């Protein structure tokens, strides 16, 4: 207490002195007098305090038993809450995680070993043909895709995908597979999936540059049922990513080898996935990003590879070939050549051919994505034997059909986002009031399909063309990472048939050039 008083006094003096820096001598005298006076009073106070009897320690007040009881109760309740918090926190670590946002909709276990991702895609198209005086094509709106699917993993490395398409007819279950990816270097894919052949076919259905893929795609099977061993390797020192499913566009080197039922050019098995013969198709693909992790940023997105199939189908049905964007048939295997009996004047058409015997395909392929620019090129050679029958004389007709096709496409994301084999991710989502417009991509493509001339020993040249060339211009407006509006214009010209048709007879000439403008509104998450 005494110490405190001295401190207070000294502080007061200090304050007083600081407050009068310019004080005169009279003021200083007055202050000194005042200090002496205060000192004298302090001494008297101290003496009086020392003389006074020391206060006795007050007896500790007895704590009320009720208060004690309440204190115990409060302490107990507090502790119970702590324990409950501990239990709750522990339980929370076992609850699944829900994630809804730009990465999609997913539920996963806390340890990350189990995951369910809910995905969906809607593609609403419009196709409008110009210079189509004979109305050979139909202007139309159509629902191209209506898919809701589940994908994810169980027990850390068994991946799955189950994808029905409610807008499809026939094959309403395009993908249903499981992929045991125990090691990134060797995973086993089983079920129904895209065979590892055409690069553009393997690209995600919502990720392509145009509404529809180019000609080479349609010489590969759309889907097939089988088993595939696949794996990936990275440059030394880098981690190899586990990429489940039929396509891996992330790792440095990838391979796929598979055995499939074989579903023919552009074929896709129906839901029961029945095969009609014992012969299987062997599929193999190698693909590399040779400049990945080299530091040459403009070359890192370059990928090159080759794929092929070998099969021996027995009476495999053949699917018609159609133009890329217009989706109008220009090669129809049901429209066979007819021979007219000059006596009876009865025309007997050849039987619809099937693919019989040795079949192979070869697909060199490459892409290059650098900054906003992207290029993709693919060549396809498909060889098979068409077996038909001249029904007039009951003689078999076997024709070796060697079809070839190629395409080159280039694209540019003018708003500066990175171009990629996957979907473009806008830097800014579409929000016009905020001055944000999403991402805009322009693209151009040239693609050709050459059908073996021998085909027309069986097919009617008035109904099918032997060569098609299509060029396409397209624009893609990515509103956000889910929503997209596409607009494509494509012009397809034909050689070698399907020309003038008069009274059901081919009078020569080629099918008229197809002009189509198409749009798509797409939501894919």
């Amino acid at each position, binding site marked *: 207490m005494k110490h405190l008083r001295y401190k207070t006094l000294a502080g007061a003096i200090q304050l007083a002195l600081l407050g009068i820096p310019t004080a005169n001598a009279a003021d200083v005298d007055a202050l000194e007098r005042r200090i002496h006076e205060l000192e004298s009073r302090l001494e008297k106070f101290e003496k009086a305090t020392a003389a006074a009897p020391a206060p006795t320690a007050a007896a500790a007040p007895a704590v009320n038993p009720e208060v004690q009881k309440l204190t*115990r109760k409060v302490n107990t309740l507090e*502790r*119970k809450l702590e*324990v409950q918090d501990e239990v709750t926190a522990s339980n929370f670590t076992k609850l699944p995680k829900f994630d809804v946002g730009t990465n999609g909709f997913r539920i996963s276990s806390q*340890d990350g070993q189990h995951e369910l991702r809910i995905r969906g895609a809607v593609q609403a198209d419009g196709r409008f043909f110009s210079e189509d005086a004979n109305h050979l094509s139909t202007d139309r709106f159509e629902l191209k895709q209506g898919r809701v699917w589940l994908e994810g993993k169980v027990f850390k490395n068994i991946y799955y995908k189950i994808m029905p398409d409610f807008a499809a007819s026939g094959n309403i279950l395009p993908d249903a597979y499981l992929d045991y990816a125990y090691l990134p270097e060797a995973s086993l894919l089983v079920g129904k999936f895209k065979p590892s052949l055409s690069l553009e076919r393997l690209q995600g259905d919502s990720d392509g540059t145009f509404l529809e893929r180019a000609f080479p795609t349609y010489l590969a099977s759309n889907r097939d049922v089988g088993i595939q061993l696949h794996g990936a390797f990275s440059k030394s020192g880098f981690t190899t990513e586990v990429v489940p499913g039929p396509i891996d566009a992330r790792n440095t080197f990838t391979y796929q080898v598979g055995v499939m039922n074989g579903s023919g050019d552009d074929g896709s098995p129906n839901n029961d996935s029945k095969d009609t013969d014992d012969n299987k198709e062997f599929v193999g693909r190698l693909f590399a990003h040779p400049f990945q992790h080299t530091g040459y940023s403009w070359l890192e997105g370059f990928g090159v590879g080759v794929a092929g199939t070998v099969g021996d189908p027995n009476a495999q049905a053949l699917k018609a070939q159609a133009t890329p964007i217009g989706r109008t048939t220009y090669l129809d295997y049901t429209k066979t050549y007819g021979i007219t009996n000059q006596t009876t004047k009865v025309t007997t058409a050849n039987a619809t051919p099937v693919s019989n015997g040795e079949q192979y395909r070869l697909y060199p392929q490459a892409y290059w994505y650098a900054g906003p620019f992207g290029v993709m090129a693919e060549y396809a050679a498909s060889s098979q034997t068409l077996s038909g029958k001249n029904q007039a004389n009951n003689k078999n007709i076997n024709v070796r059909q060697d079809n070839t096709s190629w395409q080159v496409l280039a694209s540019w994301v003018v708003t500066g986002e990175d171009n990629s084999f996957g979907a473009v991710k806008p830097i800014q989502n579409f929000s016009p009031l905020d001055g944000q417009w999403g991402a805009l991509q322009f693209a151009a493509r040239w693609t050709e399909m050459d059908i073996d001339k021998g085909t027309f020993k069986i097919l009617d040249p008035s109904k099918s063309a032997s060569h098609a060339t299509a060029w396409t211009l397209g624009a893609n407006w990515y509103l956000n990472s889910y929503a997209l509006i596409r607009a494509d214009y494509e012009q397809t010209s034909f050689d070698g048939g399907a020309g003038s048709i008069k009274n059901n007879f081919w009078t020569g000439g080629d099918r008229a050039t197809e002009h189509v403008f198409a749009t798509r509104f797409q939501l894919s998450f």
Partner: protein
Amino acid sequence: MKIKLRQLLVAGVFAALTAAPAVNAADIKLLNVSYDPTREFYKEYNEAFSKYWKAKTGDNVTINQSHGGGGKQARAVLDGLEADVVTLAIAFDIDQLYQKRKLIPEDWQSQLPNNSSPYTSTIVYVVRKGNPLGIKDWNDLVKPGVSVITPNPKTSGGARWNYVAAWAYALKHNNNSEQAATEFVSKLFKNTAVLDTGARGSTTTFAEREIGDVLITWENEAYLVLKEFGADKYEVVTPSFSVLTEPPVTVVEDVARKHGTLEVATEYLKYLYSKEGQEIIGKNYYRPSDSEVAAKFDKQFPKLELFKIDQLGGWNEVQKKHFADGGVFDQIYGPGK
């Protein structure tokens, strides 16, 4: 120059030879997943074993510890916690590692002496100094108004021992009537103020937060309370009758093989049975299994009648009957009960 080269060569060879052991010394890490109150014991034991192993092999071994309620710890290992060894409170919890994931061999308990239990212990009480409520035995704990602290048998191995000791006491004093025993443990848990998830949590509740009149706990934990919180504040009460606890240990072979630590993990547990290991066990108030060392520490452990879990049919049966979902414990304890 010729001499200089030879000297350099000799020096180089010498340096390589002398450096070789240091270069070859391996740095080994083990994870010991244990139950709640063994923290202090294993801290001391791990240091001793590291020194022993270094002297024996030249290798550096670091043992990381994980502690919690025994049941919870076993579930963590089953869920993927990569323990090289487990040292848990009851054999049932360890057995789950075989039953559910085959992480250990079926005969794990026969791989080390004494059913793989390097020490035993028992269950006693801690009360506040002077024992104001005069608590002496189990029947004192079920009296109205006595506030008991014990962990939750669903998550803690120690709590299951506590429960079993009370149950066996009730059987003994009620002509083996299970109905009477059920009523007894029901009353006991009605008197429980807080159910912590592990034994150490209960110690905190009782000694640090000063909640409750009596703490039912491991013998070693009881003496730790005196040491940590003061013998002037608490005292240990040994009941007339309790359970002989046999906390077992085993190598999680599946994990240890994967880590390449099978040999050191096995030696780590074997060392528990050595004189040095048993000394540390005794110093930490666990009852050594080695008779010579046990005799040395005999005075610190009061005499009482101890029963073995086998008398109740073994842990598998006890677990199924009392602690499985819908078992006796669920019937006597829960919301609204």
